[in-house]
C-alpha cells in the first residue's frame, strides 16, 4: 500500500465523493464534490468506479508528495498542474512514480479541480462516505502532513479514454433552474425580475453562494422551516439570494424561490466572487 502526503495544503483541499446519503434526518448534509460532473470524469479517466473518493482542490492548489506508482487524472478547473515541475495535461490519465511531487500553479479557468487516482483515495469512511464535513469527519479539509492511503500500481493499464471537455461548463453565465415551492409568494413583477436580472456572486463556500441582485428584492416573506437540498435558491429579507450547495443545511426558514438543475449546481461550483450569473427557467 502506498500513500500521498500533503506537503502544502493549498487554499481549501478536501476528500469528497458522490455524497453522504441516508443521514439527512439527523441534520447531516449530503456533502460530496461541489462539481459532481468533473469529479465523476476524473474517476472515469482512471478507471475507477464513480463511488471512489477524489481530492477537491480549490483555487490555490496543494503540494502533494506521491509515495506510490500509479495513474492519476485532473479534471475541473485548470490550476496549471505539474509533476516535478513539468506541466501535465488536464482531463487525461497520467502515470506517476513513487517520489514525484504534484503541484499547482496559476489558475487558468474554473475554481475547483479534481484529482483522482486509480484505485481510489482511501481515506476513512464516516457515516457511509469519505466526504469531509465537520463534525461528521474530524476535519473539514486536509492539512499539512496529512496522508492518504493509495494502492500501488506498478503496471497500471492506461485507459484509452481521451476526453474533450466542453468549456462552456466553466464560461456560461446561464444557470438553469426550476420553479421553487415559494416562487408564487413573490409578485409577478418580482418573479420576472428574478429571471431577467443579473446577479453578482458574493461570499461563497461549500455551504452556499450568496447572490446580489441589481434590483431591489427586499421583502417581509418568511416560511416555517422547510426541507432544502443542494441547489435550492433561498430569498432572504434583504433581497440577497442564497444558493445552498453541497454542505448546506438540510432545513431552512427562507422562501425557496427556485431550484438549480444538477448541471447548474456543478457549473456554479466553478464560479467565484465577482462573477455574474443569470437564471433561465426550465419547465419541469
Amino acid at each position, binding site marked *: 500500500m502506498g500513500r500521498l502526503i500533503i506537503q502544502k495544503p493549498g487554499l481549501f483541499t478536501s476528500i469528497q465523493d458522490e455524497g453522504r*446519503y441516508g443521514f439527512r434526518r439527523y441534520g447531516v448534509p449530503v456533502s460530496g464534490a461541489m462539481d459532481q460532473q468533473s469529479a465523476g470524469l476524473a474517476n472515469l479517466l482512471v478507471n475507477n468506479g464513480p463511488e471512489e473518493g477524489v481530492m477537491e482542490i480549490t483555487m490555490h492548489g496543494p503540494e502533494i508528495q506521491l509515495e506510490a506508482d500509479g495513474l492519476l487524472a485532473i479534471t475541473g478547473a485548470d490550476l496549471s498542474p505539474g509533476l516535478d515541475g513539468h506541466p501535465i495535461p488536464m482531463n487525461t490519465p497520467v502515470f506517476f512514480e513513487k517520489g514525484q511531487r504534484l503541484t499547482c500553479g496559476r489558475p487558468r479557468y474554473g475554481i475547483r479541480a479534481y484529482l483522482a487516482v486509480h484505485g481510489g483515495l482511501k481515506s476513512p469512511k464516516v457515516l457511509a462516505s469519505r466526504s469531509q464535513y465537520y463534525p461528521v469527519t474530524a476535519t473539514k479539509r486536509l492539512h499539512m502532513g496529512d496522508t492518504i492511503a493509495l494502492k500501488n500500481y506498478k503496471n497500471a493499464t492506461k485507459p484509452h479514454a481521451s476526453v474533450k471537455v466542453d468549456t462552456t461548463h466553466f464560461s456560461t453565465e446561464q444557470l438553469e433552474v426550476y420553479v421553487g*415551492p415559494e416562487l408564487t409568494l413573490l409578485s409577478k413583477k418580482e418573479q420576472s425580475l428574478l429571471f431577467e436580472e443579473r446577479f453578482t456572486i458574493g461570499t461563497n463556500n461549500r455551504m452556499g453562494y450568496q447572490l446580489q441582485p441589481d434590483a431591489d428584492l427586499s421583502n417581509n416573506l418568511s416560511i416555517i422551516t422547510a426541507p432544502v437540498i443542494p441547489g435550492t435558491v433561498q430569498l432572504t429579507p434583504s433581497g440577497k439570494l442564497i444558493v445552498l450547495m453541497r454542505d448546506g443545511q438540510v432545513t431552512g426558514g427562507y422562501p425557496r424561490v427556485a431550484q438549480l438543475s444538477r448541471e447548474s449546481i456543478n457549473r456554479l461550483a466553478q464560479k467565484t466572487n465577482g462573477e455574474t450569473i443569470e437564471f433561465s427557467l426550465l419547465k419541469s
Partner: protein
Amino acid sequence: MPIAESITYQQLGHETLLMQWSGHIDEEILKSILQVMSALEDNPIRGVKEWNSTYNSLAIHFDAHKISFPELRLKLEDFRSKESAQVIARKWTLPVLYDPSVGIDLEAFCLHKNLSINELISLHTTPTYRIFFIGFLPGFMYLGGLDPSLHLPRKADPDRSIPPGSVAIGGAQTGIYPVESPGGWHVIGNSPLSYFDPTLEKPCFIQPGDEIVFSSVSPSRFEEIKELALKNEFNLKPELING
C-alpha cells in the same frame, strides 16, 4: 380527517418529492408526518433512498432510475389512506447545568426578563417539549413547547463560537447545540451528553416525535455525568409513551 385534504405533493429538483401539510406548527400535523415516516420504514419502497421532515413537510429522496415522481406519489397516497399503527414515542430527561460558568448569556437573559435564575430554571424545566425534527446542524433538535415568557429574539450579532452541549433560547424556540458552531441564540446552560456521534450508525439517540424534559443538575453532578458520557458509560433510559 381535515389534515388529509391539505397535503400537497411537489417535486423539488430531480429526485426529491415534497409532501406539504398546511403551513403551521401543530402536534396533529407532526403525528400525521410520523405516521407516513413509520409507514415508509415498515414498507420499503424500491427506489426510495431516504427522507427527512420539518414542522409541516416531509421530503422523500428517491432514485429517478428506479421510481418516478407519479409512482412515488401514488404509493404515499396509499399509505395515507390506510389505517396506521400507533407511533410509540419516548420521553427523555436531559440533565442541564444552568450556571453562568457554562451559560454565557444566562445572567443577561434573566436581567432582561426580570427573572431570578431559579425562576428561569423552573420555567425551562417544567414543560414537556416535543421534538418536531432534527435540522440546521447535525443533531440539532427543533423543540416545541417553550414557555412564552422565555421567548427572546435571537442576537443581532451571532456569536462566533457556541460550545457543544449549549442549551439555548432563540425567538420562540429552545434547543441544544450538539457541536461547536456559530449561533445567535442565548446560551443559558449546558447538557453534558453526546447529541451527535458520527461513529454510530444512528448518530442521534433522539428522534422526531420524542418528548424531552430538562432537569437541572448541580455542578458536581454535571462533571460526573460528563465523565461518564465521555466514556460511553452514562446510560440514559427513556420512558416509553404512546405518540
